[in-house]
């Protein structure tokens, strides 16, 4: 065809001109030698000096096949046709500390200041399915998030917040089924119709074994509980995101961008397989699966990662599982700026890091975003620090002009080749995990855990040799010590009060109802039934978080990790 011929002649001309340019480049480099022998991304992917149209020809890039149009398969350019012109990303700041009352106040502050969704952080005892008055909870209550031990706490947490009008995301995994039951019970008490209950349960237990390490049960029963919530949510709460398959913690634990993407998508595939095994149809549940990625320092690598993520997932869903509903193909994602990139040294610099990372997430087409506060490497954030982080998003949205155009990096020779490279390396990992028998098996072998530990150690070594730079830590250190930031401290009284409230609750609740309902939970677990409804009944009878989890512990046992490094 003449068109094709002229295209290939054009490419030849570009190649020739490029060779000429490269000769000149050599001369220039005599005068200005490269600053480094090799230029790489944060994750050590080699970066070319320049990309040109012939690179895309060499890599076999096909615009319609590999990019297409926003809102259409394979969604490389985003999941909405008009992206942020229609609806901005959801600004969702993670919040949770001390008691339910205090977090409730923070929620109201954020909503008053233009935040559009709630995002709950729970403390370590809650994450581990322990009540605030358990001896193992000592010193941990309310420290890393809000303490929730019973439905009473959940009622306080959302008191005065109409749940039909906000979307709520909850970072909870091992005991996710119990916390979900508490949330649904509160929504029901508020009289919110089921189709108005919107939000996301993180509910991604596989990444706990891989990275975040807040687990309770062994892997298989834990996955069963995830499938229970997906099954129940899909049937009863049409706009509830049943799981948020999370790369964030994987990245924070030290993974590279490719490892983050590969392990997260492989976790997603494991849930899909488990749901299919349960007898669900792909297009019934896949539209409600959502994702959560980290957004780190390397600007281009991060944008490419989000673009590659959508393309890979869409193709897997369509080609591997035969999903027919476009909603099943769409990878919708939340993003959070990288906590691990923040420095305790010269903490105000973190505001700048967060702004750059937030830009990358938005240029990568995220659907929702949390921007870290500058003090999060020191403590939980103060109100002032949280406000700067939220304003950062609002400045990008309303002042920078970035939200007015869809995927401006699409078609960039460099961005498209980088997207392809990340896609290719991610698929190599996914195929490797497939060969091991899927992610559950890979976790049992310790494969992703070891890969991440290796990357974390490698990166630390690079910091020591200054091959990688952290401003204020291994370069441009302050001459004098930093002026300390005012940080948030959680008083010990939170733990004392929480324990006291819990013992009051145990005293005043009806004596028999929680026991009967817990017995029903146990029986249902023994029979392998879906546990959401029995747990909902127990929660409504004010059984505590730990009482429900202990009931399941007695059936499933507990997970133990061999402490390897």
């Amino acid at each position, binding site marked *: 065809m003449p068109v094709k011929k002229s295209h290939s002649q054009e490419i030849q001309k570009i190649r020739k001109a490029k060779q000429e340019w490269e000769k000149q480049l050599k001369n220039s480099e005599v005068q200005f030698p490269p600053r480094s022998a090799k230029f790489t991304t944060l994750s050590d992917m080699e970066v070319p000096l320049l990309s040109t149209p012939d690179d895309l020809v060499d890599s076999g890039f096909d615009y319609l096949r590999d990019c297409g149009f926003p809102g259409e398969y394979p969604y490389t350019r985003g999941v909405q046709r008009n992206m942020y012109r229609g609806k901005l990303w959801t600004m969702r700041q993670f919040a949770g500390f001390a008691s339910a009352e205090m977090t409730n106040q923070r929620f109201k502050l954020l909503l008053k200041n233009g935040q559009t969704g709630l995002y709950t952080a729970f403390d*370590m*005892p809650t*994450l*581990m399915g*322990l009540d605030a008055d358990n001896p*193992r*909870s*000592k*010193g*941990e209550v309310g*420290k*890393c998030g809000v303490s929730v031990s019973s439905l009473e706490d959940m009622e306080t947490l959302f008191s005065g917040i109409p749940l039909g009008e906000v979307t709520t995301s909850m970072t909870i995994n091992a005991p996710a089924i119990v916390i979900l039951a508490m949330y649904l019970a509160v929504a029901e008490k508020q009289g919110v119709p089921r189709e108005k209950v919107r939000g996301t349960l993180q509910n991604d237990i596989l990444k*706990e074994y891989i990275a*975040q*390490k*807040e687990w309770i049960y062994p892997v298989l029963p834990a996955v069963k509980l995830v499938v229970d919530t997906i099954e129940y949510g899909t049937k009863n709460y049409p706009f509830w995101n049943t799981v948020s398959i999370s790369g964030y913690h994987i990245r*924070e*634990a*030290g993974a590279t961008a490719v490892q983050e993407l590969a392990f997260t998508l492989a976790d997603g595939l494991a849930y899909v397989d488990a749901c299919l095994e349960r007898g669900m149809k792909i297009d019934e549940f896949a539209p409600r699966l959502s994702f959560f990625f980290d957004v780190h320092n390397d600007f281009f690598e991060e944008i490419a990662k989000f673009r590659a993520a959508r393309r890979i997932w869409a193709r897997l869903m369509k080609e591997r599982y035969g999903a027919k509903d476009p909603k099943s193909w769409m990878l919708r994602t939340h993003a959070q700026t990288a906590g*691990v990139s923040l*420095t*305790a*040294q010269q903490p105000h610099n973190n505001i700048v890091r967060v702004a750059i990372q937030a830009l990358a997430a938005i240029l990568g087409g995220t659907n929702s975003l949390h921007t870290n506060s500058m003090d999060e*490497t*020191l*403590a939980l954030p103060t109100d002032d620090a949280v406000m700067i982080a939220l304003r950062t998003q609002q400045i990008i949205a309303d002042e920078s002009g970035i939200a007015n155009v869809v995927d401006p990096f699409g078609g960039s020779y460099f961005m498209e080749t980088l997207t392809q490279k990340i896609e290719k390396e991610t698929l190599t990992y996914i195929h490797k995990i497939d060969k091991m028998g899927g992610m559950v098996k890979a976790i049992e072998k310790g494969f992703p855990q070891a890969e991440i*530990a290796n990357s*974390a*150690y490698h990166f*630390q*070594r690079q*910091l*020591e040799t200054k091959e990688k730079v*952290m401003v204020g*830590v*291994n370069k441009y250190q302050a001459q004098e010590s930093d002026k*300390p930031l005012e*940080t948030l*401290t*959680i008083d010990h009284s939170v733990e004392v009060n929480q324990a006291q409230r819990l013992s009051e609750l145990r005293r005043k609740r009806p004596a028999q109802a929680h026991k009967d309902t817990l017995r029903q939970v146990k029986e249902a677990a023994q029979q392998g039934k879906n546990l959401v409804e029995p747990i909902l009944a127990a929660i409504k009878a004010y059984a505590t978080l730990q009482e429900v989890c202990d009931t399941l512990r007695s059936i499933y046992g507990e997970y133990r*990790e*061999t*402490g*390897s*490094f």
Partner: protein
Amino acid sequence: MTNTTQTEQNKIRVLVAKPGLDGHDRGAKVIARALRDAGFEVIYTGLHQTPEMVINAAIEEDVHVVGLSILSGAHNALVPEIMSGIKKEGLTDALFIVGGIIPEEDIISLKKIGVHMVFTPGASLVEVVDYIRTHAPKRS
């Protein structure tokens, strides 16, 4: 020491422990590996250890150094209990190190109760290795 190579007997033994419910083990694992690479004998407890479990591990392994990694804010509750337990069991000369997110004022109070050193984010591996090499108790 006059001999050129360290024998197994006089290797410095370091316990790297993760007490409490905190799951952040990136730092502990990186440190454990760096200490091993530096020639120390490293015992890593794994996650979610109760104070009692850490005390038992320190005593059983008769370690020279106890390194506690805590990023959840529970250090004020956990560190004193572990330290006094280990001392009570007779390991009185051990070097106590804490690593993690520890606010300035807590570093002061931890040092008051006998923690020898606190490393916070940004500390280099070389710093930690050198500190242990210099300060670990010498036992015959």
